[in-house]
């Protein structure tokens, strides 16, 4: 899904026929597709890789969901394969408790760090940001390439960790110490060690990316592109960049410390006097398990806004375009995004209310948590109000974008009872939490990203995606997602804890509603899986057989990304763009054809 020639992937000598006058010579296959420094190609690399990881993360979850619905039964289709690959842990195609924990930890890790962040920030950020600000490329193209390659190898390491003795990391995506260290204490080089090294690579990649994005946005805006003329998408990426830049290093530090704990038996996070399986653990002791949690959540909370801000950016672009009117309250949205970014650094301990927290600290953190919900409400409200008075085109991309709003709404609203510590006493670490954040990241962020794919696909390939397949994909996903995640609130209120390999059977009778919902959720997840088939077909088939776009600006959009040739050549713009107005001049009173592009001369 890159240039028209990328359909010949792998054939080696792609010599595109179209006009690249200013190129000195055509780069070879490796330079063009693997070691490219062009932000668009890197964006596409990020996109394909992260979609594969998204798919893989989902497959892990399907295995887990099957286990929850049918404990002790072999997994259909892939059970044999799992046994062949993983041996004892998947004996007879049944997932053991350990393997369930591994899959759970890796599902969380892969979804967050290898699927959504690279898709939202790496892929969309890379492809769209320079185009929207009118830049020829990223400020540091080679750093950009390095960032992708480091990410890629971090991902490979994560995948490889399934095959080391003892299996992949199995202490949750949060990797709480001491469990993360003592789970395989006698085997210092284990899945957790690989996880940590993988994380260090992923963090490094994100840092390189963040430096690059922020510099690009500060330095390479086209002439006339003032800060308040930036599309909201760019603002979202800008704030995201800062979140990654400043929140990730503490986790990198923590990762290094835990790595040393695992490899050299130090005890940064191990307190004195641990007795594991009746044996005193041979470490010096004196460490603090809570230190790990502080460092983890110092990243962890900003990270969730890394997952949501780019999604909000994508949705804003698409809503403005398809309502054919300017975003309502653009400025307040920008300030809200900045406040979210700022506040997200000082709310982290709301994940730690029940680790023994006094009233003062707990009050501080729940106050900041409530404060941060306000800018979210502001952004959502602005988007809602933007619908009023529009002339709404319901294409697939818009369908996904508008359904982001209530889905994120549900996820965000259910964050409130978690944010108040009094109610978190009851809801902490229950399926209510699982329901809360999946509503935000799955039907929320994933929908926004789907919307973005349908929206920018024509720019990337010169062809539309199929609308019929798209609508099947949309309705299937909407129904599937809700049937999967809504029942989790009930399970959570019922008192069902998360990360239970038996789905809570130890605590609930077989006819308890909580257990029955497990089965129905799994069926819904299967429906969700089926609904993705048209999408996968659509992505690949439309490269060749999609309807061709009529011009460079098929959606009649105003932003600079649509003022480029399709697909944009190396260097992006035929001539240096100059910006004269704000980003969303749709239906402006004096507009001809219903909109005024940002670079149209006044």
């Amino acid at each position, binding site marked *: 899904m890159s240039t028209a020639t990328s359909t010949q992937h792998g054939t080696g000598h792609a010599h595109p026929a179209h006009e690249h006058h200013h190129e000195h010579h055509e780069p070879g296959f490796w330079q063009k597709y693997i070691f490219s420094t062009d932000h668009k190609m890197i964006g596409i690399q990020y996109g394909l890789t992260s979609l594969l990881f998204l798919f893989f993360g989902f497959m892990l979850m399907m295995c887990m969901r099957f286990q929850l619905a049918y404990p002790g039964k072999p997994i259909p289709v892939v059970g044999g394969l799992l046994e062949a690959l993983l041996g004892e842990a998947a004996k007879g195609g049944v997932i053991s408790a350990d393997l369930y924990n591994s899959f759970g930890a890796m599902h969380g890790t892969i979804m967050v760090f290898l699927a959504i962040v690279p898709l939202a920030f790496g892929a969309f950020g890379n492809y769209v940001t320079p185009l929207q600000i009118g830049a020829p490329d990223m400020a540091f193209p080679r750093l950009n390439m390095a960032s992708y390659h480091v990410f890629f190898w971090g991902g490979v390491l994560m995948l490889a960790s399934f095959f080391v003795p003892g299996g992949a990391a199995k202490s949750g995506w949060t990797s709480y110490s001491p469990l993360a260290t003592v789970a395989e204490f006698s085997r210092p080089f284990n899945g957790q060690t690989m996880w940590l090294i993988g994380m260090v690579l992923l963090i490094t990649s994100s840092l390189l990316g963040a430096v690059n994005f922020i510099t690009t946005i500060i330095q390479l805006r086209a002439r006339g592109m003032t800060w308040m003329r930036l599309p909201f998408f760019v603002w979202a990426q800008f704030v995201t960049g800062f979140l990654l830049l400043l929140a990730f290093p503490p986790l990198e530090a923590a990762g290094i410390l835990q790595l040393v704990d695992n490899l050299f038996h130090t005890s940064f996070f191990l307190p004195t006097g641990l*007795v594991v399986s009746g044996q*005193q653990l041979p470490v010096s002791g004196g460490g603090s398990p809570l230190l790990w949690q502080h460092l983890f959540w110092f990243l962890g909370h900003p990270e969730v806004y890394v997952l949501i801000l780019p999604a909000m950016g994508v949705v804003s672009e698409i809503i403005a375009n398809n309502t054919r009117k300017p975003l309502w*309250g653009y400025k307040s949205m920008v300030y809200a995004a900045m406040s979210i970014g700022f506040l997200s650094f000082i709310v982290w301990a709301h994940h730690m209310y029940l680790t023994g927290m006094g009233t003062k600290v707990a009050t501080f953190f729940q106050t900041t948590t409530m404060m941060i919900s*306000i800018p979210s409400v502001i952004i959502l409200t602005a988007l809602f109000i933007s619908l*009023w008075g*529009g002339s709404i085109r319901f294409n697939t991309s818009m369908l996904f974008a508008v359904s982001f709003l209530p889905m994120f*709404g549900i996820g965000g609203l*259910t964050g*409130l009872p978690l944010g108040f510590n009094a109610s978190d006493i009851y809801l902490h670490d229950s399926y209510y939490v699982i329901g809360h954040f999946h509503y935000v990241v799955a039907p929320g962020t994933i929908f926004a990203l789907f919307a973005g794919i349908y929206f920018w696909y024509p720019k990337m390939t010169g062809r539309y995606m199929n609308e019929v397949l798209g609508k099947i994909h949309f309705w299937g996903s909407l129904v599937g997602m809700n049937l999967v995640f809504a029942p989790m609130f009930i399970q959570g209120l019922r008192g069902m804890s998360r990360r239970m390999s038996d789905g809570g059977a130890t605590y609930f009778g077989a006819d308890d509603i909580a257990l029955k919902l497990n089965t129905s959720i799994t069926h819904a997840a299967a429906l969700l899986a089926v609904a993705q088939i048209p999408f996968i077909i659509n992505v690949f088939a439309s490269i060749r057989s999609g309807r061709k776009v009529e011009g460079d600006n098929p959606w009649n959009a105003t932003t600079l990304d649509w003022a480029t040739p399709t697909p944009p050549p190396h260097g992006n713009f035929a001539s240096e763009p100059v910006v004269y107005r704000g980003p969303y001049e749709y239906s402006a009173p004096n507009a001809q054809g219903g909109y005024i592009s940002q670079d149209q001369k006044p």
Partner: protein
Amino acid sequence: MTQLLQKLGMPAPAAAHGPALDDFVGYVHVLMLILFVGWLAYYLLALYRFRQSANPKADYTGVKSHMSTYLEIGVAVVEVVLLVGFAVPLWARAVDEFPVAKGDPKTDPIEVQIMGQQFKWSAHYAGPDNKWGKQEIKSASATNPFGLDANDAAGKDDVVCALGEPFKLPLGRAIICKISSMDVIHSFKLTAMRVTQDAIPGMTIPAHFTPTKVDKYVITCAQLCGSGHAVMRGDFEVISPEDFDKWYAEKAKSGGAGSFE
């Protein structure tokens, strides 16, 4: 409201502070519900009314009223009320306002030491002499989770329900649990009592509640702690004070530090 939540699945509370907590959960959900229903109605209306076929020409300015600002302020005000009026006091009650002993053995709070380990819970009472036996890390083992010193006189009458043995609590007496762990982080969660507290090695964290219903209850481990996390169930029973005294006295004879090797 609380009833509505219970219909949605929340089990009935069995501790004195339970109803207040449940009410609070209810109020938050009312706020959420109002916002959700209100916005959803507006949203569906907007999508329907302004579809392209019904409104071919978009309005450049859009909404001019300041409704949304008031709404946002409204949300903020409600949040402040919930925060200051409920969440903070409820929390302070849970972590600061511990019941204190007044010297009456019939009504004084009972302290129970709770120890989590992979994948069992253990409970430890001071026994009739009201003195904890001597405890040391180096005595701790797989079977002696509290590290009780077998030779210490104060420990002879301690009541220990180790390694998943169900323990008992009297109705209507304040219970202070001192929660810790010997290996990894667990979480001591009593769904019916509305109590959750992580059990963290290296720390002892108190939590308290007053049971109000005679019944059998379970302890859930609510923090991932290894391969047996899902089956790390604990059991306890709330019984009448008379039955409890009987059980306690009996247990004091057989249990205690001496019973460990």
